[in-house]
């Protein structure tokens, strides 16, 4: 049997998360295909190393021509269920599309569903977390087809060049009529993609205001980092929902995670404790964040931030004296 990966396409490229799910899929040792829902995504998908076939799903948008290419999760689920006989695993990254379409498709195809898989042991056995990361479970699926979302940060990206997959256009499917996308709004301030950034700079309630979060975001921007936030900071209105890191937000595993004014509730730790290096700045020496931090600074986060801003500027001048 084969594995099918949902190929997400954004800003003119196959997403980094998709490339990571291809790696996860390949670990099953079975042939990997990629399904895309936009014609312009087919060629880039065919370049991904190790992919055999690219399937192009198209929707007959007779009445929905105002949002060309916007395939709803309901419609995608119908398409995936129709392909279920040919695949033993249908995989997507643990992002909005996969979370919505895969369980729906699993119900339509009478398949198993697993969310947020972090490791692949063999074609039917996977690892995922329970209880906000407090428990790690090895699970086996017993159905003919499994639908699973994968935690992108747990896998390295496959090369997006070197592949030579064939491209097959599937017969157009009818859109699910009762759901329509009205608008998508990107949150401001999130700069780089949290899930794939090499450095994440996160702020918590300790920031104290939206203005201070903006200052932290500006520092993150100058570092080439993504901005994250704790739920407390999001609830306080300092940062948008899309920046939330944790059990109910995004899971990240960057090379460096800098936590400013985050106490470290277990729900937050669930979203960042797989980071390679964790740096925590908090005025409370007993804050739980220090239990996972490689380097902790107990002190005023604004003083620490000011020092780092100065050191970044000094470093920049030292590296590029003429600029």
């Amino acid at each position, binding site marked *: 049997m084969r594995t099918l990966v949902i190929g997400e396409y954004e800003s003119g490229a196959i997403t980094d998360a998709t490339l990571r799910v291809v790696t996860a899929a390949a670990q099953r040792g079975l042939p990997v295909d990629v399904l895309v829902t936009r014609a312009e995504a087919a060629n880039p998908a065919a370049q991904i190393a190790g992919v055999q076939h690219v399937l192009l799903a198209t929707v007959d948008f007779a009445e929905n021509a105002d949002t060309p290419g916007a395939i*709803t*999760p*309901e419609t995608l689920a119908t398409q995936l269920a129709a392909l279920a006989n040919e695949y033993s695993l249908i995989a997507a990254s643990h992002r*909005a599309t996969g*979370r919505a379409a895969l*369980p*729906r498709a*699993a*119900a339509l195809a009478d398949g*198993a*569903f697993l*969310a*947020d898989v972090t490791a692949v042991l063999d074609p039917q*056995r996977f690892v995922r977390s*329970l*209880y*906000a990361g*407090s*428990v790690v479970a*090895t*699970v*086996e*699926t*017993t159905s003919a087809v*499994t639908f699973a979302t994968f935690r992108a940060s747990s896998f390295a990206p496959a090369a997006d060049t070197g592949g030579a997959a064939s491209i097959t256009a599937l017969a157009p499917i009818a859109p699910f009529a*009762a*759901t*329509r*996308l009205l*608008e*998508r709004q990107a949150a401001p301030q*999130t*700069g780089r*993609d949290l899930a794939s950034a*090499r*450095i994440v700079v996160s702020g918590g309630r300790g920031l104290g205001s939206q203005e201070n979060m903006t200052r932290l975001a500006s520092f993150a921007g100058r570092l*080439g*980092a993504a901005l994250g936030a704790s*739920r407390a900071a999001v609830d306080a209105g300092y940062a*948008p*929902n*899309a920046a939330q890191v944790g*059990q*109910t937000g995004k899971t990240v595993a960057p090379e460096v995670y800098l936590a400013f004014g985050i106490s470290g509730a277990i729900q937050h730790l669930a979203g960042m404790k797989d980071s390679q*290096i*964790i*740096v925590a700045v908090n005025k409370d*020496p007993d804050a739980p964040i220090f239990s996972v931090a*490689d*380097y*902790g*600074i*107990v002190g005023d986060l604004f003083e*620490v931030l000011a*020092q780092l801003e100065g*050191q*970044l500027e000094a*470093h*920049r001048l030292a590296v*590029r004296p003429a600029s």
Partner: protein
Amino acid sequence: MTIKILVPVKRVVDANVHVRVSASGAVDTTGLKMSLNPFDECALEKALRLKEAGVASHVSVVTCGQAPSQDVLRTALAMGADDAVLIDTGSATATLDSLAVARLLRAFMASDDYGLVLCGKQAIDDDTGGVAAMLAALLGWPQALNASGVEVEPDGWRVTCGDDAGTATWRLSGASVVSADLRLADPRRVTLPNIVKARQKPLRTLDAATLGVRLEPATRVLQLAEPAARQPGIKVADTTALLAALGPERLFQNHATGARA
């Protein structure tokens, strides 16, 4: 339009309890504080507000489990739900997966005419988030997950959902399934008079066997373990010591290269 709203809920280990794996490789919840799943609480709050706004005439809560789950149903009744049903899944409870729950809920819904299902976006124990979309699939209804806003529209709903990079707003026609983010509605506190009143509200138990649904799971847990602990870290005095330990390049290498967006 006035409709009936169904709010499926789950009894879970309280969010503030740190769950541990026993020496025998199991999660023993005996003696741990149990609560109504926080996302379900937000879903119920939204359902109650829709009723108070005249959009809905009746709010029912339902859960799949065994007798102990009656406590979260009583909590839901005390918050303001009109009636509650425990679908007793007996010995199958321990291995019930999302699809079995979705099948039970669909079979249960055949007994009444609901216009909206509002549930939490995930249970904080298994962190799967599968039931809402699965139930929508079995019903053939539209779905919107991770909702932070639900507004009624003529013959449908306008739902704002958290998305990867912001929000997406969907228009759902007719009866729908919506799953709640914590931001959908801040749950009201349960008051003592309402707890007393809730004792008089209908709470019935339905034997899952009467629903004629397959309960065998499609997924099986082989092993449970605690995650590997991180190596203990160190405290450093200031950022100069931090950069010395970390290596400045590690933190600052991206700035000049204009990292890709």
